[in-house]
Structure formats: structure tokens, C-alpha cells
């Protein structure tokens, strides 16, 4: 891990519930459309990576972004999901696409 990453901090911890921003954005986006607006749980913090939304346009991608693996329950992602209740989908999502969900 780079020196920049060593001093950077990340906002979310495993087990925390997060909401994926429902942004209808142009540009090069690595957060799939189907998951925007869904709520999931941080499975792990993966590390700090250059921002692909910047790299795609020839820029440096710095500062690096915190990346998480976020787990979603399939039946909550797809209203008509036909599989088992325990089925999940894991997606790697950058921090700026995530918002905290306060437990009620």
C-alpha cells in the first residue's frame, strides 16, 4: 500500500449498513445502474485505489478512493427475485457512492 494510502482514512467499517447513491450520472461510472438506490452491508474494506472515474479521462486518479465490498440481499435488489432468501450479491463500490444508513 502506498504512503498516501497509509495516511488516508476510510469512513465505513464491516457490518455497517450503507445506501448506494441514486445518481443518474454521465461519465465513466463503475457503480452498476441496477444497484444504485439499494441498501447493503459493508462486507470488507478492500483498500485505496485510484479513482476510475478520473483515470478514464486521462487524469491521475488521485487522491485515491476507499473501496469496499458491499453485500446486498438479492430479494431486496430485485423485487421479482426467484432464488433463495439467503442469496446475495457482492459489489465493489467506491466510498463516494456510499452513504451511511442510521439504524432506526
Amino acid at each position, binding site marked *: 500500500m502506498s504512503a498516501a494510502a497509509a495516511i488516508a482514512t476510510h469512513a465505513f467499517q464491516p457490518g455497517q449498513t450503507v445506501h448506494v447513491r441514486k445518481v*443518474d450520472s454521465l461519465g*465513466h*461510472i463503475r457503480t*452498476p*445502474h*441496477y*444497484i444504485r438506490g439499494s441498501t447493503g452491508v459493508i462486507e470488507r474494506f478492500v483498500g485505496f485505489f485510484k479513482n*476510475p472515474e478520473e*483515470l*478514464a*479521462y*486521462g487524469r491521475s*486518479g488521485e487522491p485515491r478512493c476507499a473501496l469496499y465490498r458491499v453485500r446486498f440481499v438479492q430479494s431486496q435488489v*430485485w423485487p421479482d427475485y426467484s432464488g433463495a432468501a439467503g442469496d446475495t450479491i457482492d459489489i465493489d463500490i467506491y466510498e463516494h457512492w456510499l452513504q451511511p444508513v442510521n439504524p432506526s
Partner: protein
Amino acid sequence: MRAYHDLGGTPAGPIDRNEHELQLWEKRIEALLVLLTRKKILRIDENRRGLESLGNETYFGVSYAERRMLSMSNNLILKGVITVEELAAKIAQIESRVDPLP
């Protein structure tokens, strides 16, 4: 709006599981991408953005290797690594060769 390459969850038919062996020219496209990436001339993210700018018809109308080649070429022109004129002249030169295939 969902971009055309962002396919997760969209309606689709059965999966065609026929395998096909890649030809040398298709492997060379992958090799060019590896080399350009390794030499920091082209980021893989830029090539993805290029694929996402081809338009729906081209993206789905040509093969995987072909669309990767188109994106790479567009990016190299965009970055000034090669020019439109150079490319046109080189293609004409290849067409004029007696035995153009390597």
C-alpha cells in the same frame, strides 16, 4: 439513464455457450492493450470509456476484439499517439501489399 454497456439485470435470452479459439490477430489486440497499459500510454479505464463511447449499435454490432480495437485506436488518436492521416496511409499501404497477411 442506464448506459448501454451497463447490462446487469436487463432482459436477455439464453446464453450461447459455444467456445471459440481466439485467432492470432485477436490475441495481438489483447497484447497491444497490455503493452500500452504497461507503458502507461493508455489506462484500461480509458479503453473502457472508449468502449462506452462507441454507441449502442457499434458496441453490440461488432465482435469483442473488434470493439476493443476501435476503442484503442480512437484513444490513440485522441492522445496524439497516432494521427488520422498516419492511420489512413498505413491502411492504404497494407491494402496495396501483394500478400498483406503476415
